[in-house]
């Protein structure tokens, strides 16, 4: 047993129990295996004591007590099964049942209903009431959530959850007494984050999943616990499926499990239809006379192997490259790089993590030995100061955002948000509202804010003493470097006062436990690598790396970005984040694999495209990647792909790139395979198979194995588990959340004054400020809460919630342009004499700072991605195509570019 800080001993039902001070009696009982009945109490919520079900008798207390909000006391004697207590349980049941209908046979909660269970256990088998039951009028609520108020027992769990956990407050208790109904403002249709939390937490069938309405009886569903395939928050969820139909019926999540502890976002809860999407590719396809035709697997593999061998023979293995999606499992990424490096013999292997995450990994690996979060979710929640920079966290990482909300709302942390964002109360929560002193900055200046914070830390002598003592040279060099950045410049660029920056720096360094989270608006903007390096300086200097409970946390977008890079699906890294140039480590790997591996540093995704255009890369093997669909035309991606002699696309769907492919191989989705994903904390979590793959689709790892055999270089694994075992063996020194002290010492010693000087030189300003496009507004391609890459586009319910991209802009800018919600606007950029434009609907968001606008990147057909600046990071080869300067005007009578092109696209 773990030792308690302040133990309190009490007696419940004759059993002596010792628990931590502050524990509620109901929880103390639970720890001792004694079940006190309850309704309104819940592990996720603060006690509310409104249902009276948990009444117990306590010695020396005159009346019965609600055990859910009664803290334990030394020597307390509690009886939950005394006659008085049992009588109370019976009468409470009687009261609740007085109004409850008997529609269990057709209620979706039937079989998992807390009221059914308690009635069975605690109620007399007859009622004292003969009066009519209340029958609230049935009114429409939402397409996603079904409301049946006659079943409501007014425990308020839903309302409390939406407030306490989500900070959304989209539902309310309307009216009073026995007329209470859970509803919205003026009984309007529900508009919220659609996290499904209220559905999950409702003990009865008053709130149920309308998308799955009447589709199931809970006990008939097969339950498979796995990890969400959308974002890197890494939520554990349960896929509930009908075996006979091979279909997911609904998704749930266990309150006690996973990193999310039962919380999900709309993508996890309602986004499962992409699995059984009718758009899935069911069979391999080969291009014949310009058309893709279905082909048997054996021959498709043979064809792939034969053509790859042919290209290797003619041009050498280095004319072949491969890119894998960060949505694939660790096992698949590991096998993919083995296939390329060993079976084919090429060093050119990369992944979609190149798109920003590699900036974090490259910078942080230099500093700390790995690129994972150094403060896990628990530490975020327990932190005294949390800074979120370069991410609108609710939209990019909703569950990580919940941890930040808990830090502020439950534990009183000081939150500092940094971004072009303002307060806004709306159907979607907004961290800025929880920040006492939010730093609303000029869009695109986030990296300048980081540098200015470093400057403030050294100038104000806020340096962590141990660092100041141990790394004097480093500190002196940083001090020298930041002198290049005068305050007036920092102020002008960021739109913040030096005082505000200094105050934030003081909070960070003064906090007992501080956590900094950073996201795409740093890592996916030009200069991303340098920005993360500067952020690492901030972390080192303020002690985020040395103070327990503190940390620097990179946020990832796709679910397994962290994993695929760690598995070596990157030209610069071998499995285990080993630098390919590290001769000794390569030899160790050669021992383990018993094979020679290519010694050259390979090409990144962006370099591969360039080499294809130059005619040096002849074959490209894409796994789950769709560069044509995601990159702007200015990257020259189409030309690159068309120059290839062989393009293989392995994907669950036929993508835009797939339409150009010579060979399309149908891959299984995440629900159809086994393996592991690594979330951005660095937790490796099991992915389990819930369904049989659609059609003839196969798991990616299986296809790699077959292809390796076809190439005459077998990589044989009977299961994904065998690959997992090999990974464990080979990567005995896998990094974990702790930092590598030796690496850090080396880094601090090696870092040259020149590099630091370059890092803190203000330069000509961020790309977005320079603005190639010449407009007056800064455009950022952003992420939406309801989408994830383009995968969510295949999820019918998410497409119902957010069917199109809209340009979000500040109401004052909208007013200036004469634009109302839903009006079309034309975005234009001028690049020399060439002008490009896109027409999209606009929406006003008070949250968006004036001069800033953003468009969700999940709708590339809208053409907005063609307006942004394209550049490639000189160090990490990260492609930047997320921002630009645009002119905006109202487009009267114009049709959206989106709808025109989407119609053409979807009309396949």
């Amino acid at each position, binding site marked *: 047993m773990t030792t308690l800080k302040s133990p309190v001993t009490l007696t419940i039902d004759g059993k002596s129990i010792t628990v931590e001070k502050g524990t509620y009696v109901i929880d103390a009982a639970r720890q001792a295996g004694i079940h006190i009945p309850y309704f309104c109490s819940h592990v996720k919520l603060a006690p509310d004591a409104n249902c009276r079900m948990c009444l117990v008798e306590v010695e020396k207390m005159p009346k019965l007590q609600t055990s859910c909000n009664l803290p334990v006391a030394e020597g307390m004697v509690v009886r939950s099964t005394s006659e008085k207590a049992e009588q109370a349980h019976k009468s409470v049941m009687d009261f609740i049942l007085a109004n409850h209908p008997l529609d269990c046979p057709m209620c979706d909660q039937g079989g998992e209903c807390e009221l059914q269970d308690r009635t069975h256990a605690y109620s007399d088998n007859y009622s004292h009431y003969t009066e009519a039951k209340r029958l609230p009028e049935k009114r429409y609520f939402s397409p996603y959530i079904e409301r049946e108020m006659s079943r409501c027992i007014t425990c308020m769990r839903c*309302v409390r959850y939406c407030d306490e956990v989500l900070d*959304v*407050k*989209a*539902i*309310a*208790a*309307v*009216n*009073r007494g026995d007329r209470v109904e859970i509803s*919205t*403002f*003026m009984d309007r249709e529900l*508009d919220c984050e659609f996290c499904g939390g209220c559905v999950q937490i409702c003990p009865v069938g008053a709130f149920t999943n309308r998308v799955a309405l009447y589709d199931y009886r809970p006990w008939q569903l097969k339950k498979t616990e796995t990890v969400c395939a959308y974002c890197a928050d890494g939520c554990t969820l349960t896929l509930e499926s009908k075996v006979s139909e091979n279909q997911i019926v609904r998704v749930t999540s266990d309150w006690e499990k996973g990193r999310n502890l039962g919380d999900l976002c709309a993508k996890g809860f309602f986004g499962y239809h992409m699995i059984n999407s009718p758009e899935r590719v069911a069979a391999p396809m080969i291009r014949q006379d310009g058309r893709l035709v279905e082909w048997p697997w054996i021959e498709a593999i043979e064809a792939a192997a034969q053509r790859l061998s042919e290209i290797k023979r003619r041009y050498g293995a280095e004319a072949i490259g491969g890119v894998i999606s960060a949505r694939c499992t660790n096992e698949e990424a590991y096998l993919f790089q083995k296939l390329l490096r060993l079976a084919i013999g090429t060093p050119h292997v990369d992944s979609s993590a190149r798109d920003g995450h590699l900036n974090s990994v490259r910078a942080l690996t230099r500093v700390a030995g790995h690129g994972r979060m150094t403060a896990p979710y628990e530490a975020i929640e327990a932190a005294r100061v949390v800074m979120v920079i370069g991410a609108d966290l609710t939209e990019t990482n909703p569950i990580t955002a919940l941890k930040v909300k808990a830090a502020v709302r439950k534990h009183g942390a000081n939150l500092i948000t940094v971004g072009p964002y303002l*307060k*806004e*109360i*709306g*159907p*979607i929560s907004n961290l800025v*509202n929880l920040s006492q002193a939010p730093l609303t900055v000029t869009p695109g200046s986030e990296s300048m804010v980081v540098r200015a914070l470093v400057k403030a830390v050294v100038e104000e002598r806020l340096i962590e003493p141990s660092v100041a003592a141990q790394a004097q040279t480093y500190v002196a060099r940083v001090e020298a470097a930041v002198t290049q950045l005068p305050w007036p410049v920092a102020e002008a660029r960021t739109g913040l006062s030096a005082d505000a920056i200094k105050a934030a720096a003081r909070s960070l360094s003064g906090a007992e436990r501080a956590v900094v989270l950073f996201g795409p608006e740093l890592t996916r903007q030009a200069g991303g690598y340098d920005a993360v390096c500067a952020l690492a300086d901030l972390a080192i200097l303020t002690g985020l790396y040395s103070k327990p409970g503190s940390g620097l946390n990179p946020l990832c977008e796709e679910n397994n970005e962290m994993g695929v890079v760690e598995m070596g699906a990157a030209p610069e890294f071998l499995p285990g984040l080993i630098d390919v140039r590290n001769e000794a480590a390569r030899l160790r790997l050669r021992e383990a694999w018993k094979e020679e591996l290519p010694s050259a540093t390979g090409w990144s995704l962006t370099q591969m495209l360039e080499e294809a255009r130059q005619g040096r890369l002849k074959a490209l093997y894409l796994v789950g990647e769709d560069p044509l669909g995601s990159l702007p035309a200015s990257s020259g991606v189409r030309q690159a792909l068309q120059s290839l002699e062989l393009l293989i696309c392995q994907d669950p769907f036929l993508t835009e790139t797939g339409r150009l492919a010579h060979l399309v191989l149908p891959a299984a989705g995440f629900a159809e395979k086994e393996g592991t994903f690594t979330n951005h904390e660095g937790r490796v979590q099991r992915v389990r198979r819930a369904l049989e793959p659609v059609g003839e689709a196969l798991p990616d790892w299986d296809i790699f194995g077959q292809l390796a055999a076809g190439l005459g270089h077998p990589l044989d694994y009977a299961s994904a588990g065998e690959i997992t075992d090999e990974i464990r063996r080979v990567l005995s020194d896998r990094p974990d959340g702790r930092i590598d002290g030796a690496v850090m010492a080396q880094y601090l010693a090696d870092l040259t004054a020149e590099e630091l000087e370059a890092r803190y030189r203000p330069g000509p300003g961020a790309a977005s400020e320079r603005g190639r496009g010449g407009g007056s507004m800064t455009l950022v391609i952003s992420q939406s809460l309801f989408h994830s890459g383009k995968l969510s586009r295949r999820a019918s319910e998410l497409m119902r*919630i*957010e069917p199109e991209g809209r340009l979000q802009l500040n*109401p*004052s800018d909208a*007013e200036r342009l004469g634009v109302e*919600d839903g009006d079309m606007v034309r975005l234009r950029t001028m690049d020399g004499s060439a002008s490009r434009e896109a027409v999209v609907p606009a*929406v*006003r*968001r*008070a*949250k968006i700072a004036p001069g800033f606008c953003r468009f969700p990147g999940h709708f590339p057909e809208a053409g907005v991605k063609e307006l942004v600046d394209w550049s490639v990071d000189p160090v990490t080869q990260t492609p930047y195509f997320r921002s630009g300067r645009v002119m905006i005007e109202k487009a009267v009578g114009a049709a959206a570019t989106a709808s025109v092109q989407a119609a053409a696209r979807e009309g396949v």
Partner: protein
Amino acid sequence: MAHTPYNGSSQRPAGLSEAARLELIETAKRYPIKRSAVLHGLRLVQREAGFVTEAGMRDVASLLEMTPHEVYDVATFYTLFHLRPKGEYLIQVCRTLPCALGGAESLLSHLEQRLGIREGQTTPDGKFTLVTVECLAACGKAPVMQVNDDYHEAVTTEQVDRLIEQWHRTPPVQDAGNASTRGKGRG
């Protein structure tokens, strides 16, 4: 789904007057948390509009940094807030036990008959609204009814007829929205 924020600057019907907004902002400063002033906000809305309007609730929400759902939650809890327009004269008949024994039911049916409306309704000319309420805390003088801010105790049908005559002739003293209980006995 629109996902429109509640505090966007959309054009909408007027809620609180400028003076009331300022008053609410001032009141909110007295509390550590702004939202504590929500009852006062609703009271201002009702005082200005005669009832709690949608636009008024939105204004209160936005000034106090709450969602409109939360304000609606509060507004629908208190019976002294009216979510629909009510007549110039709001007649509240107590129906709790002492008044029920004292003849509340016949008082109510007499009123219904005289005004030509049922409980919960408003006369077409907007003059009268008739509702029933729980104990008005004047049980000793049952049956009791409250009309706007005035209490009428031990009410008889003749008295009702007289009062209705009088009300038809004169408009009420303006402070109908004032929800405070300034019950003054008269008998």
